[in-house]
């Protein structure tokens, strides 16, 4: 893998663990294909389901230890997300964890993974993953904020995940209500029983970190889609006490944003600045778009 002349992309990660975390975050089913788009700015990976749920993972070029891009245009291919994660897992065996080089395309348009070894090393881990030509164009959600001020709130990722997990009990759909006075976010599910979880802005500023809402809104979402946005949040996100931002767009389109660290190597300390915050260059951005249920009250968009 020394020559880069025939490849659109050759990039290198110090450790595959962080990338596995990020990819796992957008995996909610066993068999899912992901659309991968390469560019000089980085890699975007898109996963979607039945036109109602879409996840995007942004891996900026700064995420990688090295990033050599020489394609014209933006190559796109589809790959099995589960298989990609399983193959990356080979590079994270305790005691064997090592840097991984990602290359596209291989001789047969495969996505190639190979461990980066020192010249004296006597072993090498490899994976060649067959890619597919994407048969559908991913849906552009064209997310636009409802009203002049984006209606959004930021909540601790761990608290959001816990709330959504708890809402599994009633099942069915979940109504999210935001009201400005007093500022409050409510999750309510009715099914086998009723359960309502309220985040009061002034009462829980450590949980509800930001709140922007100038009018009451409420939308209903399918529980399984809402759960997909939080089900595989990696433990590093909750451990780092990160927040997740939920923004409501036109028609109740919900955007959920997470930040996942991709520098999780035992040998490499995370890049931190003087104030102790991790530099954003090693952060993967994850966005979920969830469509509301169809029987929406048109009053919401008034």
């Amino acid at each position, binding site marked *: 893998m020394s020559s880069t002349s025939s490849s659109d992309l050759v990039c290198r990660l110090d450790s595959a663990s962080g990338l596995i975390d990020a990819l796992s975050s957008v995996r909610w089913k066993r068999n899912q294909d992901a659309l991968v788009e390469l560019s000089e700015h980085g890699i975007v990976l898109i996963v979607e389901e039945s036109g109602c749920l879409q996840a995007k993972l942004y891996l900026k070029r700064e995420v990688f230890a090295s990033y050599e891009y020489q394609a014209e245009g933006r190559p796109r291919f589809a790959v*099995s997300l*589960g*298989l990609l994660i*399983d*193959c990356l*897992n*080979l590079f994270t*065996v*305790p*005691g*064997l964890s090592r840097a991984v080089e990602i290359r596209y395309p291989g001789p047969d348009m495969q996505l190639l993974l190979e461990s980066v070894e020192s010249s004296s090393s*006597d*072993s*090498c*881990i*490899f*994976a*060649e*993953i*067959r890619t597919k030509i994407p048969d559908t164009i991913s849906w552009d959600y064209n997310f636009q904020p409802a009203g002049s001020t984006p209606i959004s709130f930021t909540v601790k990722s761990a608290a959001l995940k816990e709330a959504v997990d708890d809402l599994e009990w009633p099942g069915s759909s979940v109504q999210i209500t935001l009201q400005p006075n007093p500022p409050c976010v409510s999750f309510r599910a009715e099914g086998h029983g009723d359960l309502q979880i309220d985040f009061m802005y002034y009462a829980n500023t450590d949980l509800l970190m930001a709140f922007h809402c100038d009018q009451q809104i409420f939308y209903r979402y399918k529980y399984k889609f809402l759960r997909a946005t939080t089900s595989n949040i990696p433990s590093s996100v909750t451990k780092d006490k990160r927040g997740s931002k939920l923004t409501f767009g036109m028609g109740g389109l919900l955007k959920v944003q997470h930040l996942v660290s991709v520098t999780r190597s035992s040998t490499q300390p995370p890049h931190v600045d003087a104030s102790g915050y991790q530099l954003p260059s090693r952060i993967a951005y994850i966005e979920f778009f969830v469509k509301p249920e169809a029987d929406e009250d048109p009053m919401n968009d008034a």
Partner: protein
Amino acid sequence: MFFILTSQSHSPPPQPQDLSLLLMRVHFGSGTSLIDDLFVDRGHDLKSLEYLVGMRCVLFRAPLISLIHNDLDPQDADTWRSMRISKRPSSAHFCRTSERRMKFKASLTNHGIQILEKRFLQALDKIGKTWHIYLTPDHFIFLHNLLSFDGIQSVAQFAKQALFSDYRIASQTGNRIAFTLDLPLFYSALRGSASVCAAGRANGVHVRLAKKQTNSNGPNMPFLTFETQGGNSTVIHDVPISSPLSPGDIMELQSALENAQEIPATLVQVPNLAKMQNFVERHKNIGDILKVSVTQYGDLLIEVATTLAVAGAAYCNLGVLGVHVDAPAESQAMKVRARMELALERGEALSAELKLKHFAKSLQCCLSEPDSAFLGIAPQAGCLTVIFQFFIPGTHQTDKSISLHCRLPVLET
């Protein structure tokens, strides 16, 4: 003190002083290989018998033993070879001659308990539940799947001194006994005995074959009995076993064992067994067929190939046992995968496909804490062999009293 000695022939009965000679032979002879069967008449005071010869003869502590002298001249050493030692047969034993004279009794050492409980039984339990136990005059052997090669075969062999301080066996099949048992039950019984020993209340664990009635009217059933004698109590664990194998089946088992011990021409050392195990486990989600390739240069390639992906690892400069050649100069700078293809073309490598789960199972043997492992492909035998090596503690010398290996069937391609 009075002994009644009977003779199958019309020879004169041996004199009392001959008993000293007889018992010294029992005690100092090479165990069961010298004297096969000795019957002492029921009810005699055996402590006195020991006193007579001025020693403690462990064999004679059992209360019901009969002694029959069936040879002509007690002074002739050769004639003593036909004498046999066994408990007086109960009525149930008369149903089968081979079982009637079958005896096994041994004392597990603390080291033996430790080896079995903490290391080997954990590993063997992962490989399979049903095992043959094959007892020979010198070895205690666990055999899995040796008579039907439809899965992983495994052999764990212990020299008797590796596990036992006292080991006595007798049977009409060359002093060999074999039976099957459920390994989890064996493991459970040993753990129970070991816990009594660990509490410091036991004088040792005695293992023996026994026939017992499970209910008042039922037939006698065979058991492997673990007896742990404490200060005031005796803890007994009975592990049900199959009926002992017939002489013909034992011959077949012995033959299968000899076949299973054939070693491939080239064996390469498995790099870091525990990590390899973890690594192979991670392939399970990718595919279920593993391809293993071995060169005579010391290269090893393991990979899973499906229609969607090929993934694996390549290793070079590994230790080699058996046929070992240097890699051709032109391939020195090649990557292992490329060199492997060249070696296969040159006939200096072998490749085989097998079920990943079999390979993963064989690596579970690392629970037995081997010091190293080697693998090789035997094309004629249609198997991949994984051999685990154990060193004498504190040295780098192979402990020949313990051996463990697995044979994995390869798929026809």
